[in-house]
Structure formats: C-alpha cells, structure tokens
C-alpha cells in the first residue's frame, strides 16, 4: 500500500478506536510493515498537529488521537467527568511501584511503602490506571497488578524508553 493510502487507513483505524492502537496492531490490520506504519504516522502527525483541533500522538508503543489542550474546556463542558481524574501523592507513589516492579502484589507494594496501600490501589483501579493481571503462585494466590493501557495515555508516555530506568532514578 502506498503511503498516502496507508495514512487514510491509519486515520480511520485510530478514529474508530478512540484510544491507542499499537504499532503492531496497525501493521497487522493494514498489512504494512511496522516501519511503514511509523513513517506514515509521522507524516500524519506533521499534517495534523499544525492545523487541527485534534492531534496525533505517539503513546504507549502505538498511536492515538487526542484533543489539543486548548480545546479541552469545550469538551469538558460536554463530558465533565473526563476532567475529574485527580492524582494524590500517595497514588502516584503506588503507581510508581507498580510501574517499576510489575507484576506486583499488594503485600509487595505495602512492604516497599512501609504502610498499607489499599486506598491508593482502589483509586488507581477505579481510574483504570492499573489492572489486575493473574495471581502470584504463593500461598493465598494474591492478585498481581500492572499498569494499564490508560496509564500511558494519562502520563503521555511514548513507550518504555520514555520512563527513566530504575537505575537512572538513582543517579540524579
């Protein structure tokens, strides 16, 4: 498929989805290579990001459309709950633990924080920033937590390389 056509396909897919579609998925759907997808998406990004109310973003190993922040007010009038997400310091810390230690159990999170984390975990689950993913094979079979797809969107993270590594955190 030539790039011009591929661009339209990507637009349609991203519009339908309304959230991130992974590069791999885009390649699978269109039959193009991931390299071609990346080229077409960058091309689209240039076109979109200058003249429109919506922009194309590279997020969580894929691409998505988002509204430009300057138009958020109008969107929030229509969907006020979209602006309701509030993140406390403790929720951000629990989220960091899950990000770096995933998959991780509640007991492990508690051990790192030195304090019970039931509240922040519930908030993060409610806001779809984390998800449960299987159970750990230890007595009691506790649930394991991971960050969710929404996590990458909320924090605008392109992919894993966009997060400082655990070792890098120390050097600062």
């Amino acid at each position, binding site marked *: 498929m030539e790039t011009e056509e591929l661009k339209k396909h990507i637009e349609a897919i991203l519009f339908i989805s*309304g*959230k991130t579609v992974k590069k791999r998925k885009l390649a699978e759907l269109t039959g193009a290579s991931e390299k071609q997808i990346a080229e077409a998406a960058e091309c689209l990004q240039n076109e979109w990001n200058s003249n429109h109310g919506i922009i194309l973003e590279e997020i969580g190993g894929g691409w998505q459309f*988002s509204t430009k922040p300057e138009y958020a007010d109008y969107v929030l009038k229509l969907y006020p709950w979209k602006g309701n997400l509030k993140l406390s*310091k403790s929720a951000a810390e629990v989220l960091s633990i899950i990000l*770096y230690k995933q998959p991780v159990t509640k007991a492990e999170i508690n051990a790192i924080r*030195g304090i019970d984390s039931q509240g922040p975990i519930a908030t993060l689950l409610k806001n779809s920033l984390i998800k449960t993913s299987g159970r750990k094979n230890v007595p009691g079979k506790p649930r394991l937590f991971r960050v969710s797809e929404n996590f990458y969107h*909320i924090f605008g993270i392109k992919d894993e390389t966009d997060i400082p590594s655990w070792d890098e*955190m120390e050097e600062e």
Partner: protein
Amino acid sequence: MNGYFVKLPVFEGPLDLLLWLVKNNNMDIYDIEISRITSQFLEYILASPIPPDAAGEFLSMATLLLKIKSSLMLPKETEEYQEAVEEKTLLEDRLAEWEKIKKSGELLLEKFRGRKFFLRRDEPFKIEVAKKPNFSVFDLAEIFAGMIKDKKNLFETVTGPEIYLEDVLKELSDRIKNHPHVRFSELAAANPRRLYIAVLLLAVLNLALKREISINQKKPFSEIIISRNTAARAKRQEANHGN
C-alpha cells in the same frame, strides 16, 4: 527541638519520615547515624499526631530502630551486633528504594499535570458503520403503508357464530382426502378471521398428532404446507386388514 519540626511535611508512613530525617540531617542514605535518627524519629512520633491507620507501622519502625541502636552499642564480636549491621543495611536499602519511588512519583505527577487536558474518546465509535440494516428506509415506508392499508387488523372484533374445533377438523379431513397437499393460507382464506384461523391451526396440529397429515414450513413466517400422510394411512389400513 532544634527547629526540625517547623513546617513539618505530612508523612505517609515511617519510611517517608525516616527519609525526610536523613535528608534533613544531610546524612548519607547508605550510612545512617542510627542513634541520631532514632531519637529524632521518636521525638517526632511523640510530638506529632500520627495518622491512626498508620500508627502500627510507625511504632514497629520505632521498635526496629531502637533494637538496631541498642545492638550496635554491643561489642562488635557479638551476634546481636552483626545482626544489627545487617538490619541497618536492609533498612538503608529500603530507604534508597523508597527515595527512588518518591522521585518517580513526583515525575509522574509532573507529567500528569502537563497532560491533564489531552483528552481522548477512550471508546470505539458509538456509531457502528458496519451495522447495515437488512432493509432500507423505503422498505419501512412500504411495510407501514401495508399495515395501514390492511386496516382489518385494526378493527377486528370477535363476534358472530361460534366456530367449533369438530367442524373444522371435519372440513380439514374432507379437504385433505381430495387434495394430497394443501396450503395453510388457502384454508385460512376461506374464513379470514382470527378465531377461525386459530381453530384451524388447532385442527391441523390435531391431525398431525394423529399422523393423518404431515406439516412442513421452510422457515418462520413462510407458507405452511399440509400433506396427506399416505404412509401412515397405508399402515393403518394394513393393520385393519389384518384384523
């Protein structure tokens, strides 16, 4: 109280307080002066209200610090001293890890603030382009016109002579004797009233049960074909003959 606790931050847990004390004393996180930290830690929890749900954690940390502190005062050769050194190293590792988590939490909060107004739909198009109906709006118009034209539906009332199943059964049996295949709609057309059609249907089911006829319908709402069941009849005649 050396002004330590002026403008005290809120501590989430004991590690949080410990880290703050280490930083505030300009100590190396990997070389904590346990005795100084312990006394400050105790001063804090005695002087400040501890969040009730975290009181246990603060107290158990205080116990740990006191234990390490006292063991470290023993001669270096003792087992307790060695154990305390190990516990101190473990605590320092935990503290270092907590420091990284805090930093990363701050980083996330910063990213979050910058991203708050990038909104996305988060769900697929409500409108499903692929959901094409099996008829058009013109078909709807036709269906409606058909129903309105067919006004007998609307005003039908059940009055007039009663219809008995026996009568209809007999009619149906006679009809089927002369015609091997009959359409249900033909039979119904003879008396297009709902009561008659209902009784007719009962009669058909009755004969089908007695295996006098077989009924056949290709798909729902299509024509029902009623056929004389010759095989069954033949069988019965055979049986009669045997008698």
